[in-house]
């Protein structure tokens, strides 16, 4: 089940490189550099240094005692990626890739962002390493997340609003790819999730695997065993694959939770693995939300970070092999979990991570008290309080 390095970029039939010819030399150069540096002692030491001293690793594995007692089933642990610098797991990947870009002597970094978390993490890593960065962001997202746009500017990045199509994450990726095609010689594209053409999915997974590796060793220390289950939210799927991959060969149940939005029977969700079909987008073969003809559909989630019509190819592979169970959680259930965790544990989770929390609340009782479940809390929810407030006010109005 564990594919250490995908041959020809393929996880089973998924992944690969469906890209314009201009980008072929660029991804080949990237792969070569990645293979050279990923086991290089100095590179690893430098990355470890930044992860530890700058980003704040390792993150705690916190026993959520109150939540565990309230639900009454398995012991629930939280992997606190929300405590990282920048407030999300994204920095694990941006530090790794920005360092690689520097080794490759690239002069300019571009990235896409949806809600702004990856944009902020890119801006931070680039500022720390002294690299100029430019961020593409759908115009609609720049309006929804004005504060994050300002944060990126403060961190020295320029933000380009994308006017194409639905003006969200999907379009931001399109535009970043177009920029990359145009400036291929000088520019490094710092992709934010485990998606895109090979080697991005495997590289992002490797940089995020620090999450699962820490879970493994921390659980061995605390509980003297590996976790019985791990749960993570899945948009593109980088925090989830980073959680799952180091545990794939273990006897751990795995749950990847997608955004069920207003219900996967409606048109308003982003549950790609639960409701999608196979197709080709953004350089990879994977599950997609698309119509009968192959046109990509608009997606919805209360959590902007999950609002994407594709998913990392390794997740598609793990779904078809049934190693991971992929399920979905609705906007409403995610909001409820957000409120529950805030109230009982004093932790405000990102709405993305709230999907994983909601699923844990749902299944914890099916486990015995001697079992342990780990939820990857991929980010903190300060960015979401306004969205939640509006959602709650709207519901009060609707009930009146």
């Amino acid at each position, binding site marked *: 089940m564990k594919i250490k390095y995908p041959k020809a970029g393929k996880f089973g039939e998924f992944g690969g490189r469906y890209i314009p*010819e201009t980008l072929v*030399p660029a991804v080949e150069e990237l792969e070569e550099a990645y293979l050279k540096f990923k086991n290089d002692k100095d590179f690893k030491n430098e990355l470890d240094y930044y992860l530890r001293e700058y980003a704040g690793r390792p993150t705690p594995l916190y026993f959520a005692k109150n939540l565990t007692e309230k639900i009454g089933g398995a012991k629930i642990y939280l992997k606190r990626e929300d405590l990282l610098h920048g407030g999300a797991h994204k920095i694990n990947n941006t530090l790794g890739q920005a360092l690689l870009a520097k080794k490759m002597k690239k002069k300019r970094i571009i990235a896409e962002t949806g809600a702004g978390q990856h944009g902020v993490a890119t801006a931070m890593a680039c500022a720390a390493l002294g690299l100029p960065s430019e961020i593409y962001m759908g115009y609609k997202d720049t309006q929804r997340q004005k504060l994050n746009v300002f944060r990126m500017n403060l961190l020295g990045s320029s933000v380009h609003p994308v006017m194409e199509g639905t003006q969200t994450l999907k379009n931001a990726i399109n535009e970043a790819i177009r920029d990359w095609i*145009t*400036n291929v010689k000088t520019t490094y594209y710092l992709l934010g999730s485990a998606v895109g053409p090979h080697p991005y999915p495997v590289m992002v997974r490797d940089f995020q695997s620090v999450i699962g590796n820490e879970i493994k060793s921390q659980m061995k220390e605390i509980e003297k065993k590996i976790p019985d289950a791990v749960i993570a939210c899945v948009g593109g799927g980088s925090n989830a694959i980073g959680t799952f991959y180091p545990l794939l060969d273990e006897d751990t149940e795995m749950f990847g939770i997608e955004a069920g939005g207003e219900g996967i029977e409606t048109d308003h969700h982003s549950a790609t693995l639960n409701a999608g079909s196979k197709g080709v987008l953004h350089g990879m073969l994977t599950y997609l939300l698309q119509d009968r003809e192959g046109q990509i559909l608009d997606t919805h989630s209360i959590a902007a970070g999950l609002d994407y019509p594709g998913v990392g190819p390794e997740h598609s592979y793990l779904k078809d092999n049934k190693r991971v169970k992929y399920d979905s959680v609705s906007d409403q259930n995610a909001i409820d979990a957000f409120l529950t965790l805030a109230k009982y544990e004093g932790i405000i989770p990102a709405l993305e991570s709230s999907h994983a929390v909601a699923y844990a609340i749902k299944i914890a009782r099916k486990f015995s008290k001697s079992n342990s479940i780990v939820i990857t809390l991929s980010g903190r929810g300060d960015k979401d309080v306004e969205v939640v407030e509006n959602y709650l006010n709207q519901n009060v109005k609707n009930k009146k």
Partner: protein
Amino acid sequence: MSKIKNKFLELKSKKQKALIAYVVAGYPNENGTLSAIRGLVKGGADIIELGLPFSDPLADGPVIQNASYIALQKGINLSKFLSLVKKIRKETDLPLVLMTYTNLLYKQGYDKFISLARKAGINGFILPDMAIEEAGEYLKAIRKNKADSIFLISPNTSPKRIKKIVSVSSGFLYLVSVFGTTGKKEKIQQYTIDAIKNTKKLVDGKIPIGVGFGISNPKQAKFFIKKGADAIIIGSAFLRLIEKLPQKDIETKIAQFTRSLKAVTISQ
């Protein structure tokens, strides 16, 4: 013999180069596309490329993005596209090339899609996001349906890779002239001139070389022909023109512009 190959042989005997014109099917609407194609035929285009719009055209610049978006909004889909092709086939015998993105073929199944398009009258296919490493099933379907597979190369494609691409290409080889997306207006770059020269040497007459992306007027077209292009491919410039025209003027104005482009492909 393939219609496209035939066309190049015919032009060679007349000492002409090819003018390949691209329009987006369903833009500004179905009738508008038909008028544009009538204009292209009248003006003397040699090969017509028809774009089947995709929701996420990542190799395209703003002009084709916008045209694709509008065409999709107005309801273009595969069955409407195929009936449009059939209508065009009744009016012209010119080679027709379908340009779209891989997902639309993958979703139907390569063989089913290509066979449907062939039956409607399409002769060749261009997929800007199809790399040769992923093209196994696609090429099988191309051969089975006796279609041409037109691949793209770029100024940064290595000589070794160009040879590999040529070995699976038929019809013509599409040389992307600039680093960028379609319709990028730029001064002529030395690297483009070098790319034409090097590709010509490598290809050694095995397949015609079409140069496209960012060519927008007869002067540029003439220059690239002088540098060795066997065909000039123009797309965004036609769409920019269509954008400005009332429906009734599309045919005549497109014919006029086409004539000015075709003129430079005929050696004096």
